[in-house]
């Protein structure tokens, strides 16, 4: 009782502190300072190349000179060896959608099992998964790539054969899924384990088996957490360069947009005006996803935090 009263008081105090005009002003300043560079990028992207190279983006307001040439160049100009960006846009979609759906699907099942099935070694297993988040993904690049390219042999025994999937989307999907699972399971587990026990028990009494329980109770109730992880994972995969570059094995057919954008600047960095437009094209989709799902985002940040 006392603890919760104290927490209510603390909440009230925090509310007062953060709704004061000074705090609001500070929040506004931070917001503006953080937005200015992006805004400058946006302004640069609609200026002609000559202007970009000769003056700063802020001079745009005294000398407005709008041109969509950069966007035109980025999206549609290209050769057969260096296709225009819009083709890579589709590669990005083809990489991102499965790489978001796979880990979420697996993680929901795993989290459900870890939270509501009582089996031996459950806590150790959960702790192991949690601990895996610590492993930097850079460490796994080479071994994973070897696995995809050559399979796995120990001595003369083939454990995983050479699947011949190098240069396709499959290694990228698998890699993203592997890297996402620890956090996804952790996040969803903490959320799913918060579902009131009474609810689950009531359903059991009504004759629900494990799968009905999952599909009728657990899944609908965890949508906020799933949505928030979906945003996280989508942004991460969409903006990823390293995994796409490495597991795409240098193939242009599967390279995501980030790989192409990194090259657009040219050998000597002379083409940076097209980068501004490229950056905004690549930003468009994450922005849409974010705004479409943003109301779950704040809830999602809380996912797993309310274990009391």
């Amino acid at each position, binding site marked *: 009782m006392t603890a919760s009263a104290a927490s209510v008081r*603390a909440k009230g105090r925090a509310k007062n502190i953060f709704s004061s005009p000074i705090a609001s002003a500070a929040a506004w300043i931070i917001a503006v300072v953080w937005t200015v560079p992006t805004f400058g990028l946006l302004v640069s992207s609609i200026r002609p190349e000559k202007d970009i190279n000769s003056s700063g983006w802020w001079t745009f307001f005294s000398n407005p000179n709008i041109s969509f040439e950069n966007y035109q160049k980025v999206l549609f100009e290209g050769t057969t060896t260096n296709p225009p960006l819009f083709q890579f846009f589709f590669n990005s979609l083809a990489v991102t959608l499965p790489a978001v759906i796979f880990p979420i699907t697996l993680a929901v099942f795993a989290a459900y099992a870890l939270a509501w099935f009582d089996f031996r070694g459950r806590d150790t297993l959960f702790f192991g998964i949690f601990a895996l988040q610590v492993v930097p993904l850079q460490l796994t690049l080479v071994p994973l790539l070897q696995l995809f390219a050559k399979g796995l042999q120990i001595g003369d025994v083939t454990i995983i054969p050479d699947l011949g999937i190098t240069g396709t989307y499959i290694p990228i999907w698998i890699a993203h899924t592997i890297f996402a699972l620890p956090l996804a399971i952790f996040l969803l587990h903490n959320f799913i384990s918060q579902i009131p026990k009474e609810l689950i028990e009531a359903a059991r009494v009504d004759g629900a088996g494990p799968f009905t329980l999952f599909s009728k109770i657990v899944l609908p109730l965890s949508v906020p957490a799933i*949505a928030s992880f979906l945003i996280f994972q989508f942004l991460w995969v969409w903006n990823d360069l390293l995994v796409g570059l490495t597991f795409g*094995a240098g193939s242009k057919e599967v390279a995501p947009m980030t790989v192409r954008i*990194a090259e657009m600047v*040219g*050998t000597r960095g002379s083409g940076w005006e097209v980068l501004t437009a490229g950056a905004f094209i690549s930003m468009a989709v994450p922005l849409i996803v974010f705004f479409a799902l943003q109301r779950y985002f*704040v809830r999602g940040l*809380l996912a797993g*935090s309310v274990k009391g």
Partner: protein
Amino acid sequence: MHLYDLDILLMEALGFYARINFERTKMSTIRSRFVAIGATAIAASLVLAGCAASDEETTTAGGTTDTGDATVAGCEAYAAYAGNEGAEVEIYTTIIDPEASLFIESFVEFEECTGITINWNGTQEFEAQIAVRVEGGTAPDLAIFPQPGLLASFSDSLVPADADLTASVDANYTPDWKTYGTADGTFFAAPLGANVKSFVWYSPKTFADNGWDIPTTWDELLALSDTIAAEGNVQPWCVGIESGGATGWAATDWMEDLMLRFQDGDTYDAWVDGSLPFNDPKVAEVLAEAGKIIKNPDYVGNVQAIATTSFSAGGAGVVDGSCAMHRQASFLGGILVGDYGATIVTPTDTDVEGGITTFYFPGVSADNKPALGGGEFVGRFTDSAAAAAVQLYLTTPEWNNVKASLGGWFSANKGLDTANVADPVNKVAVEILQNATLFRFDGSDVMPAAVGAGTFWTEMTAWVAEDKSDKAVLDAIYASWPY
């Protein structure tokens, strides 16, 4: 538990705490929207996949028709590479557009005649990714290494050069180039493009108006500088070494160039790998020679201002005629044209205002012609006949001439005809490379980073800016060398 508590605190403090809402109605709307988004996305990706596929078909179809038209003439020259129809060879490289397109263009005839498809795969991430790809078992067929040091670290995975390639490189390149493609005593990688640093930029008009001759030895260069200084109208040299965080690198190029002139190749190598101490009398001799120009106020005006003049602005004096000579690599031309209104001319164009060109930074004697520069090397990772054929083809005078005639590029290939090199500066560069008695890579790039990208820069800057003595400079660099 700690983690959770922290989270709660944080959230409450931010006032963002929102109760998780379990209302059924909301749930169902969310669910249906999810399904909608998912369905649209999948449908879109399917349509797109279809588009991409049909695009490819059209391009290949176009390509095949072209081949049909052009194969008849001139394919005899490619007989040596026959027998690899349908093979694909990936070239992994740092070279991306706009240069990459010219490379691809130069392969067209080869591809049509041999049936080998060359996949040019350029990425800025090359230097980090090549190790991952080789270790991970997805090594490219051919890789273009921008520096010999990187090449040497792959000596376990590269396929040693075969007899044909060795013979071609022996015939077409000087031994120094072969040495740079060799690691642990095995020759692996064939030279590709080159760049040259041993240039003095000047204006043919200024030289002609004043009746000066191009010097061919170091002593003539100093004598010319004296003459110009005595006449007093024009400052003999412009020197600038400012380059932001890399200030001083331009001065290290002076040292390297003179090291090759006053010492021999072995001494240069010993100096670069650290077996010759940095404060050795041989190095001191070179620094003293550099000081004859850089630290002579009669030649360069205000010595201290060198440290604050940017390496590109240093060349501007040559364009407007306020100074006579400027020592810098070939890339400076582009900067002077772009930013200072210069025009690149041939040495015989003596009436172009603002026209600039280069002469060879002379050796100690007329027959001492070392060259400082750099280049790329093509290493092979797969044991395939098609990849070997491409690697061999890139060393032939035929390909080098085709590539050079497309512009903006040259190599050290002895069969490269300067008539195919349009740019007057590149033409001089090719002559320098072909006549070079000695060729060495930029030493500061190969030295340990603490020196090559550290004290060598800063101490050379102090040498001019603070008038630090030769001995103090060399002792300081010596002390910083990680032996």
